[in-house]
């Protein structure tokens, strides 16, 4: 290819023009871009409305986990100590978030929608031990640190196979 001095000079005009435009950088800690409603962040465990835990300690999430980051130890519910509606409950429920790949398979495997992936992604810690989330931490209402976009903006249209059936 032969040298193209004119085209090279045009390049200088291009770079010069950018000086007068506003940078498109999003200044992260000051401005947080809203995540999608279905964004897969840190897990949450849920309770029924009557306060019982949805998790029954079946370990299906642990079995589905490709990163092997979930540890469930189940125990029997008793009349005096009823934690979940089923026969058993999760005595220990730990997620090692330093191993988790946020694939969402645990969410799919769960028969009772006890575990879902929340929207939080600001979960860095100074120590690896702090990244092992226990049941209490997962059950607790998370501190809202990440803005979430309005779900109605991202509602998918009804698929054609449902429309015509």
């Amino acid at each position, binding site marked *: 290819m032969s040298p193209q001095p004119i085209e*090279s000079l045009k*390049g*200088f005009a*291009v*770079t*010069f023009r*950018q*000086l007068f*435009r506003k*940078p*498109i*950088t999003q*200044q992260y800690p000051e401005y947080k871009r809203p995540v999608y409603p279905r964004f897969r962040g840190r897990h949450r465990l849920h309770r029924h409305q009557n306060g019982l835990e949805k998790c029954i300690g079946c370990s299906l999430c642990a079995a589905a986990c490709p990163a092997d980051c979930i540890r469930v130890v189940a125990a029997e519910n008793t009349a005096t100590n009823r934690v979940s509606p089923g026969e058993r409950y999760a005595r220990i429920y730990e997620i090692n978030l330093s191993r988790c790949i946020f694939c969402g398979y645990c969410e799919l495997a769960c028969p009772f929608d006890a575990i879902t992936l929340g929207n939080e992604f600001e979960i860095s810690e100074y120590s690896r031990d702090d990244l092992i989330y226990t049941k209490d931490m997962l059950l607790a209402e998370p501190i809202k640190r990440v803005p979430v976009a309005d779900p109605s903006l991202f509602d998918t249209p009804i698929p054609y196979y449902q429309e015509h059936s």
Partner: protein
Amino acid sequence: MTEPWWIGLIKAVVIINVLLLAMAFTTLLERKLLGRMQLRYGPNRAGPFGLLQPFADLIKMVRKEAFAPMAAIDVLYVAAPAFSAFTALSAFSVIPFGEGWKIWKWHVNGVVADVPISLILIFALGSLGIYGFIVGGWASESKYSLLGSMRTCAQMVSYEVSLSLAVLGVVLMGRSLSLVDIVDKQIDTLWFAGPQLVGLLVFMIAGVAETNRAPFDLPEADTELVGGYHTEYSGMRWGLFQMAEYVNMIVLSALAVTLFFGGWEGPWAPLGPLWFFIKLLLAVSVFIWIRATLPRLRYDQLMRFGWKVLLPVATANAVITALVIAAT
């Protein structure tokens, strides 16, 4: 016209400090300007508008461990960056930045050292500075460094020829090798950027190559070589190399301003150093602008351009200038 020796000493201390500060903020200016040209902000975390970034960088570099390869040739390895930085800094001493003032009962020149052959001195110091890069790469005893310094050597030697030839037209028109005389001549007649436009272009292009900056940054070429001649350097030794590069850029910009844009002469107000500073800032910005725009040349393109385009043009410019001056 003469001044006592200690005034020169004071001026030297002041100029070196100003130059180092200017170097520090040139790095910031470069990152800011590059960022803006790429629709980014550039550094804006350390201090207001990122103004403390150079100092943060300095502290980081000084505190970093300066490790050395086991096989490195100690004395040369340590001396090379300091040598480069020294030659780069000392070249600025002959560049006039003002008219000269009368302070109380002493006359103060607008230049640290008024040498009658100052232009040759600058090129001599520039050539010596190359040794810092070459020896530094060679003394590291690493193949990447050696390759990098070989490239540096070939490139700088090639482009230095064009650089000196581009200046020849100015020397002929100014009828002097002293930068002070050249500036005076430009004040009497006109800025040499007009009649020596070709010389200016060649000077700028060769100057970019001489300071190892994009698009001629093959000695560093971080995407091809690991880091060129300073692969094995770290901490403040690496910082000294970087400093030498930036000071070289400032010196070359100052030289361009002095030779082609009337030095410290301004359109109005006798504020020599201020005009010099403004022109210098614009020249440095042009260097950065070039870096933001052009992609890196391939090695054979670099060599072909240097010897087959730049050198004939510079030679023709010098010859034609000589003929015109002889005819008039």
